[in-house]
């Protein structure tokens, strides 16, 4: 044991004598070979097939390889839809029919010209593959073409969020009908798209080795301005501190996601690199379980919410990369003032409640998603805050698959859960129905309110901000959901990398539009 401690101490001393990683950032010079060096922290986890990929960091691949008919304006916190492969678009007043005129002069990476035929085949493929993002086309009744460049999409039922789906990072992307027909195999080309792409984006996929390395190169027939970077090298790093060492040595141009709280603090104090807290729709939510013990009481749930000192959490965990949640929805989804979340920090009600409870009811469990070190810290801080008020909170880690498991079988779910989430698109309904509906896919702890449920149909049909706001207000009143903080994409980049802010889209976490980057 003595030797073990001595060994550890010797190495730590060696490390500290050499300087910590954050304080020894080497001066990096802009690459002259037009190669952009980035990295993934862990493998994206799913193939870069836009009809399959439904997670976070791999959006760097899917959103640069593929394009949808519409997109969100980059470089702004306010989600606003703009043209992409469709130049103009129109929705019928009842949100069932959408007519679009396509951009001319667009080519797929295999050389096939982009025409209206690709819209139908791309929609059909998404439905046939039937993976996570397929729900966005589930209500499509027909896709009809009027010539090569006009398309009409009809829905079975009105959906005010449909245009947002077309613009969303997980939305339907256009795929070359030629490439997909030639490589369909028995799985609608899923095997092919694990290592190739069939999009129109500014970049094409040149390497995809799971867990090891990905690469892209600029597409010379892209319809937009010629990108500065001719290729992008993306090795998979599995350790955050090693990734930071590579960045500090100048081997990476930027780190786009998952920096730890301590790394963020270090980089904020390092003037030789650029830091970018960029707006997103990501929020850390606290879920309270209305089916467990003392939390069955709405008053208790509210008291538990009020006892959380968000300011302390924000300061200790999210310095420089999050704002306090003041709306029931993630920030930027709704105009300021709508869906207010007026939860004022007040430990007194919980303290009073704890004093009146028998000892057997003073213990609760706070769960967090095991992949999020931030939420572990949040849960620990909350536990300490509750302990001071007489409530013992046990902190417990759960794998993602366990958390999803509670949706079908709530047995074993904790009293409270801290987890990060974001909607697929910016329209409020895209968040409310999966979070607050009784059968919502993110309603992990089974909370519902008949009043909320009755509003979903009209919210979907009209997209009325007032209805969305009302749903948000009602959700706050249940005491089941608490938007703790709105997270930003905290990115760090070498000082020579230009255009980071303008290449970031509020709905696309962990990623940048690489065609928008340059050096200078």
């Amino acid at each position: 044991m003595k030797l073990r401690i001595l060994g550890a101490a010797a190495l730590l001393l060696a490390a500290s004598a050499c300087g910590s990683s954050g304080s020894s950032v080497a001066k990096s010079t802009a690459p002259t070979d037009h190669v952009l060096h980035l990295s993934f922290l862990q493998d994206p986890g799913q193939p870069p097939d836009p009809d399959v990929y439904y997670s976070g960091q791999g959006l760097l691949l899917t959103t640069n390889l593929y394009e949808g008919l519409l997109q969100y304006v980059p470089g702004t916190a306010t989600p606003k839809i703009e043209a992409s492969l469709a130049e103009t678009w129109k929705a019928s007043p009842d949100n069932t029919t959408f007519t679009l005129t396509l951009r001319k002069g667009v080519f797929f990476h295999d050389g096939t010209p982009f025409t209206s035929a690709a819209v139908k085949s791309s929609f059909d493929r998404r439905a046939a593959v039937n993976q996570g993002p397929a729900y966005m086309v589930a209500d499509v009744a027909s896709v009809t073409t009027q010539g090569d460049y006009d398309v009409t999409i009809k829905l079975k039922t009105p959906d005010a969020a449909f245009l947002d789906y077309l613009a969303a990072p997980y939305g339907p992307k256009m795929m070359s009908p030629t490439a997909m027909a030639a490589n369909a195999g028995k799985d609608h080309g899923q095997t092919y798209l694990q290592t190739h792409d069939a999009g129109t984006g500014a970049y094409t996929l040149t390497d995809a080795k799971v867990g090891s390395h990905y690469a892209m190169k600029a597409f010379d027939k892209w319809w937009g301005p010629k990108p500065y970077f001719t290729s992008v090298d993306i090795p998979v790093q599995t350790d955050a501190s090693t990734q930071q060492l590579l960045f500090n040595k100048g081997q990476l141009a930027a780190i786009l996601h998952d920096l730890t709280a301590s790394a963020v603090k270090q980089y904020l104090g390092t003037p030789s690199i650029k830091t970018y807290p960029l707006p997103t729709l990501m929020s850390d939510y606290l879920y309270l379980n209305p089916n467990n013990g003392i939390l069955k009481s709405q008053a208790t749930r509210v008291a538990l919410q009020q006892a959380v000192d968000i300011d302390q959490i924000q300061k200790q965990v999210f310095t420089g990369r999050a704002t306090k949640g003041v709306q029931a929805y993630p920030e930027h989804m709704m105009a300021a003032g709508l869906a207010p979340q007026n939860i004022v920090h007040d430990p007194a009600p919980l303290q009073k409640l704890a004093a009146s409870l028998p000892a057997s009811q003073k213990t609760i469990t706070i769960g967090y998603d095991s992949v999020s070190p931030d939420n572990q810290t949040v849960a620990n801080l909350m536990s300490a805050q509750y302990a001071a008020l007489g409530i013992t909170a046990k902190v417990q880690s759960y794998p993602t698959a366990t958390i999803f498991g509670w949706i079908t079988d709530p047995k074993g779910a904790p009293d409270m859960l801290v987890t990060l989430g974001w909607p697929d698109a910016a329209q409020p309904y895209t968040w409310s129905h999966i979070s607050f509906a009784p059968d919502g896919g993110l309603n992990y702890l089974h909370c519902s309110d008949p009043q909320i449920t009755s509003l979903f149909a009209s919210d979907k049909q009209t997209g009325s901000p007032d209805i969305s706001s009302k749903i948000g207000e009602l959700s706050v009143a249940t005491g089941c959901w608490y938007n703790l903080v709105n997270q930003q994409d905290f990115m760090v980049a070498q000082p020579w990398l230009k255009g980071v802010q303008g290449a970031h889209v509020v709905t696309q976490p962990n990623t940048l539009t690489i065609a928008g980057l340059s050096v200078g």
Partner: protein
Amino acid sequence: MLRLIAKRLAGMAAIIFALTAVIFLLQKISPLDPVHAMLGGNASKAAIAQQRHALGLDRPILSQFWHYLGGLLHGDFGTSYRTRRPVGSDLGFFVPATLELAFYGLLFAIVLAVLLAFGTTLNWPGARLLRVVLLAGASTPAFLLAIGAIIIFYQHLGWLPATGRTDLTNAPDGPTGLLTLDGLLNGRLDVTVDAFKHLILPGLAVAAGPAVSIGRVLRSSLIGEMQSGYAKTARAKGLTEGRVLRGHVLRNSLGPALSMTGLQVGLMFAGVLVIEEIFSWPGIGQYTAQSIPVADFPAIAGVTLLLGVGYVVINTIVDILQAIADPRINI
């Protein structure tokens, strides 16, 4: 010998059966929902049910179990829920990386162990320093040793690369998946050299603990044998200490060291999994670590079975080597 191999093969089959049964049981009683995790929060109940059916998860557990065992007999480990590729293909990519790292780790460990044992037995100059360095290294947790090595040899000295298997973008993909070997087989010495450079830090981090364990056992065995009657006779005949050790004592001392090596190889795989994470080494450690949170059962089962079988195979080889080194051992 044939009897031993037959016995071990039967043991391997029993282990596969038992491991598969345990994994299936754990999967059944666990509250994990890989399908919902795969499809995300927007998936409808119908979509989840459809996917569950497509994956065969709606069948009775015994039916799934026999189907899986049948697949194994045909070399089919199922399809990963995460990578969406056959687990066999995934293992074919990740296992060579781990094997290469483990092989070099073992090689470094044996070289260091022999140096430690011979040096301290024969009182070579510098042997004490080597002993102190190795003991300090072995006493340090592997992850800390790895991070320290990266800080010193990559960040500050810039002598060695920190992550991955190679910096070359055009390294050959085959035929073996072992880059140092594939470089030679493809006439690409640059690949072999670059891959070896990438192996040094993780290999040494993996080797430190086993080197000391093997070295200490070998040393005490050597010292014991050096006191024996036949060694004294050899010395009386005028042989030097070195010749006594190499010519007479070494072979008789190898048994315990080989047993320890067999044990250490098993433990080394556990160490490799941690080292892979730190050095971004695309091996089965990384594959497993990413499969667990999303309950990628086929991937987890594939790795578990592979490691179980590997452990039996390695111990069988060690038993055989022991028998060759010392025919008195009855196996």
